[in-house]
């Protein structure tokens, strides 16, 4: 057991560099997310940790032991694959037993039972993957990877194949599970909401490089780059300054001192259920969007308004 550390990892594909000098340390027991758009190199990074690809340069260590050059079956690391990769000819219980049987574990039967219980699949133990729902398959894949007691669990967008409602539920279950068993989870996702809600630490990746590492709060509230700011959520940009729509206020009268205010004209006003989204345009041509609670006034196209925010909420990120 111990921390996972990547030191200056590079990986080239024939056409381009996929991973461009990544270094990071994941503390033991951490729920760590690699967040980035598709093609940013996060899946390749995960595959190098799992042993499915080898880095061209750089070292991967787990608890001080170098993993480079070890085959996947020699690494104390398991993976929950994007489409689960359950063995179609084996039942849920047999899928979960697969890893234990490779190790000739004498307690395989009781461990499979406990794993089924952990993911609440005891009633579905004899089902084949084709006879299971998306959520059940996901839980089987999770149990199959956890039952061999890895030091590190890799999760490759494990929620992306589920429908939105189930995805939110599984998110909670995943977080709870990790807290209960306490091993390190490395979670790969392109969904910023997922990363924010699950992680202790997030590393944002872009074009093979790390843009920022931090807690969800740091990443969201103090983004290090314009890319991070924009990837984590919508931003109103005014010159070198950005502000989130939910921190942006709108009123007919000019605000008091201590706020940065702009005059603007309302373009549209859209009811989003939990808030009202008012899109405005300043004389300088900047689009400013304000998300405000209901009951803070009604705005129509053509209305002259003031948009403003507290300077504390500003993100100063030069272009």
């Amino acid at each position, binding site marked *: 057991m111990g921390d996972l550390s990547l030191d200056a990892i590079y990986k080239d594909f024939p056409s381009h560099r996929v991973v461009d000098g990544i270094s990071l340390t994941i503390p033991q027991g951490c729920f760590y997310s690699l967040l980035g758009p598709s093609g940013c190199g996060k899946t390749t990074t995960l595959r190098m940790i799992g042993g*499915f690809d080898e880095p061209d340069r750089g070292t991967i260590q787990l608890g001080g032991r170098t993993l480079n050059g070890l085959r996947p*079956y020699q690494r104390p690391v*398991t*993976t929950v694959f994007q*489409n689960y*990769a359950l*063995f179609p000819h084996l039942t849920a219980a047999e899928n979960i037993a*697969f890893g234990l049987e490779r190790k000739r574990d004498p307690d395989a039967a009781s461990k499979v039972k406990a794993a089924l219980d952990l993911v609440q699949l005891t009633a579905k133990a004899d089902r084949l993957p084709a006879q299971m729902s998306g959520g059940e398959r996901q839980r089987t894949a999770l149990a*199959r990877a956890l039952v*061999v007691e890895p030091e590190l669990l890799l999760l490759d967008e494990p929620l992306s194949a589920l429908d939105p409602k189930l995805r939110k539920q599984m998110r909670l279950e995943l977080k709870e599970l990790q807290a209960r068993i306490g091993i390190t989870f490395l979670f790969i996702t392109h969904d910023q909401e997922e990363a924010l809600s699950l992680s202790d630490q997030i590393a944002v990746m872009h074009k093979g490089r790390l843009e920022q590492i931090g807690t969800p709060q740091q990443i969201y509230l103090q983004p290090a780059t314009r890319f991070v700011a924009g990837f984590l959520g919508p931003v109103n940009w005014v010159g070198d300054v950005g502000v989130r729509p939910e921190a942006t206020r709108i009123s007919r009268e000019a605000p008091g001192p201590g706020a940065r205010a702009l005059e603007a004209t309302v373009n549209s006003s859209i009811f989003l259920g939990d808030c009202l989204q008012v899109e405005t345009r300043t004389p300088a041509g900047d689009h400013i969007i304000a998300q405000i609670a209901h009951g803070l006034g009604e705005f129509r196209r053509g209305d002259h308004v003031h948009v403003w925010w507290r300077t504390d909420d500003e993100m100063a990120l030069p272009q």
Partner: protein
Amino acid sequence: MRQRLLPLYVLSVYAFLHVPLLILCAFSFNSSRFTLWEGFSFVWYRAMWNDAALAEATWNSLLIAVASTVIATAVGTLAAYGLWKKNARLLSGSLYLSLVTPEIITGIALLATFQWAFRYFHLQLGMHTVILAHVTFSIAYVLLVVMARLRTADPALEEAALDLGATEWQAFRLVTLPMLRPGIAAAALLAFTVSFDDYVITSLVAGVDSETLPMMLYAMARRGANPVVSAISTVILVALGALILASERLQKS
């Protein structure tokens, strides 16, 4: 109007395809030697059963078909696996070349190869050359069927097996092979049928001791209408038909 014409059209297509076969079957049960119905009889089936040369040819055909099927299925399956693993598109595509090569050309090429090889080895044409030839053309069929199955397979399955502690060999044996089993069985059945009914290539590379059933039937048919030929043909049709149906069902599962 169209609704009435369509069944009629289908019926005529099926008739065009199958009436000759039905006529052949019917006359195998005719008590007369000639193509004139005289009465129902098993006399030609009895004659077929008692014909020693025919039995030997059938035995040869079965032996060749089984041997070439076993070899072609094993080699072809592993080759398909290799092509899939390496994602070798060009090599996979070139398989179609061996399927569209006219049989007579494949046969002549094989014969030329054997004769060239015999200059250096003290060997002759015989069962072994027929089996080798059949392996050659069966492999392409096996490859195509197994590749079709592999194309729908998730490459992450083997990675998942490795991830859970299986070695490469265990991943192949415990995950890929069971997944491919229906495809392999279908490929073997197909290889068996193409071997069993091959005439052109076989007749070119066969030796004196390796006359097969299609070769014998051809020789018999050349000597004029023979109800024994009809009887054998009927038996072959039923047997191969059953095999093809089995192969189809396996491919679907």
